[in-house]
């Protein structure tokens, strides 16, 4: 039998709740939950490093990989349970505020009734009767009764939320507020060995994709990579390590596939050779994009997921993965070296971004068609890099777009996409003209390099915005008068070192 509710006592208790303290406590728990995805991502990074076998291989190493993966999966389950619990605690906070407010009101109003609050609010029925007897008009509740009723309703909802905050933890073995006795008991509550349902790869903005990916346990992530590598490997918002793994599967299959068109096979061979060559020197390579049919490749030197500074090198016309990847990778290496020279402690990742099919003949070079396709792709790629980190609360990288020639116009088109261009700096090299001014690129800092000896920078094909004119609004990087259109990334020229400073964040715009 439920004991009769002592309304005055309950209202008095609610009236002295310390709601600010409650809010701070839940805020502290919120920050704990917010850190867990990042923690799990780093733990999975350890698992991937072990799995790569570069530091440790053999039977014991494999067992260690399995153990770290198990910990990651358990962490995922704990994260999910805490998130559900936190939702209830948030609800508790939401209910506590009006509960206390209305309790104060009810007690103050009831104090003025005959007999005082105790007599007026002894229990819900008597409260209604007392108020009803005193107030003319049947069915009209006295303000004291209305306030008490509202306060009790909110307090009851708060109590339910507090209960549910604990109940939400049952999925990970919490019973009567006690966590499992040890990690083994906790792991026993998590379906580590259950079959993994391969989820369909979503479409949507990079932020949604990143949130979807971050919410998957590691086992499901690996299953998605294995089952749908082609779709996942080009999905902006997925972290670089996963895209790399997926794209390498696509690459392996392309190399083993005898019926692919020869151009695609040629591109696959070049990409594979480039990766092998870079890795043979001990460098980290990430195949961020591999679209053989679309002739699009993104190849990164360094770790796009963890680097402090990220630079995307966007080339201009007549560049194809099959013919030019090696030279472009050398450019990206030079940008990386210049960045490290400017800031030796900075972890750098530079990516050759051939995420659009560049104009392949002069007629295409002076029209917007290629840039019209490349701009949205570049904007999404930048959004994806940021979103992948944001979803696991990892620190954002300083991101710079280093665009050359027609590539500068791709940046122009990217900035026209909805939302801010997700770049901290843009470097425009030998631009054949921009539509508007530097501010229209939406980046906090815009730099340019152009020389009298570079006829393309005088062309003005895509607008009156000559980047070298003061009115354009960019900050000029150092050049030499004799530098031609292809000299901006030449290590013997002064511009490259300045680009390194921009990428490292050591060169301020004027």
């Amino acid at each position: 039998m439920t004991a009769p509710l002592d309304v005055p006592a309950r209202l008095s208790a609610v009236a002295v709740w310390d709601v600010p303290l409650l809010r701070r406590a839940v805020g502290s728990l919120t920050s704990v939950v917010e850190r867990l995805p990042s923690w799990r991502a780093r733990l999975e990074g350890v698992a991937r490093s072990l799995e790569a076998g570069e530091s440790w291989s053999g039977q014991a190493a494999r067992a260690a990989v399995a153990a770290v993966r198990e910990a990651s999966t358990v962490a995922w389950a704990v994260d999910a349970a805490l998130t559900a619990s936190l939702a209830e605690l948030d609800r508790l906070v939401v209910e506590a505020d009006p509960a206390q407010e209305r309790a104060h009101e009810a007690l103050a109003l009831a104090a003025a009734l005959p007999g005082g609050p105790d007599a007026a609010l002894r229990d819900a029925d008597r409260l209604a009767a007392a108020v009803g007897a005193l107030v003319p008009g049947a069915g009209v509740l006295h303000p004291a009764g209305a306030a008490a009723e509202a306060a009790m309703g909110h307090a009851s909802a708060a109590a339910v939320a507090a209960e549910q905050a604990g109940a939400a933890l049952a999925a990970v073995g919490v019973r009567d507020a006690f966590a499992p006795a040890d990690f083994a008991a906790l792991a026993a509550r998590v379906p580590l060995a259950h079959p993994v349902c391969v989820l369909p790869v979503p479409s949507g903005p990079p932020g949604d994709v990143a949130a979807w990916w971050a919410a998957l346990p590691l086992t499901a992530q690996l299953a998605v990579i294995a089952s749908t590598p082609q779709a996942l490997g080009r999905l902006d918002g997925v972290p670089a390590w996963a895209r790399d793994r997926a794209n390498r599967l696509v690459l392996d299959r392309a190399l083993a596939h005898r019926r692919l068109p020869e151009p695609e096979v040629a591109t696959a061979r070049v990409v594979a050779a480039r990766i092998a060559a870079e890795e043979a020197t001990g460098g980290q390579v990430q195949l961020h994009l591999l679209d053989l049919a679309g002739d699009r490749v993104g190849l990164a030197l360094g770790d796009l997921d963890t680097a402090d500074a990220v630079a995307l090198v966007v080339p201009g016309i007549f560049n194809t993965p099959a013919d030019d990847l090696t030279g472009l990778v050398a450019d990206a290496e030079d940008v990386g070296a210049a960045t490290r020279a400017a800031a030796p402690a900075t972890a750098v990742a530079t990516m050759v971004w051939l995420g659009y099919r560049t104009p392949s003949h002069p007629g295409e070079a002076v029209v917007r068609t290629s840039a019209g396709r490349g701009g949205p792709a570049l904007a999404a790629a930048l959004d994806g890099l940021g979103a992948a980190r944001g979803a696991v609360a990892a620190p954002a990288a300083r991101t710079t777009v280093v665009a050359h020639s027609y590539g500068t116009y791709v940046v122009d088109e990217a900035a026209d996409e909805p939302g801010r261009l997700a770049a901290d700096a843009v470097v425009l090299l030998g631009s054949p003209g921009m539509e508007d001014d530097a501010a229209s690129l939406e980046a906090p800092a815009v730099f340019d390099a152009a020389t009298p000896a570079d006829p393309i920078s005088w062309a003005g094909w895509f607008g009156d915005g000559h980047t070298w004119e003061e009115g354009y609004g960019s900050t000029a990087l150092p050049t030499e008068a004799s530098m031609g259109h292809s000299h901006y990334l030449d290590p013997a020229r002064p511009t490259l070192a300045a680009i390194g400073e921009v990428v490292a964040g050591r060169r301020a715009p004027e």
Partner: protein
Amino acid sequence: MSTPTAVEAVLVHPEGVTALAAELTVLAAELSDDADRCRAAAGALTSALDGDDGWTAGAAATAWAGLEELLAEQAAALAGTLTGAVQSYLAEDARIARGTGPGRSGVPR
């Protein structure tokens, strides 16, 4: 009877494995700190809400602390496993080296 399998290559770079162990140690420490925050929050919840409601909410936060602590302990245990593995490999290497020097008849047991 077990089926013979091909001998598997074993590779250990002590520095690399030690670095991973260090990362696990950091992860363990971070979560242990968060477990402390959960315990502090549990106390605050109990104080903030009078009676059963406070106890119930505080108990949930205490369970949070327990779960975080279990994960922290496991990360620390994994760090210890990796560190121990490196030490074992190095010790075994030293032991083999002692038995294979000039004039030695074989690997000491």
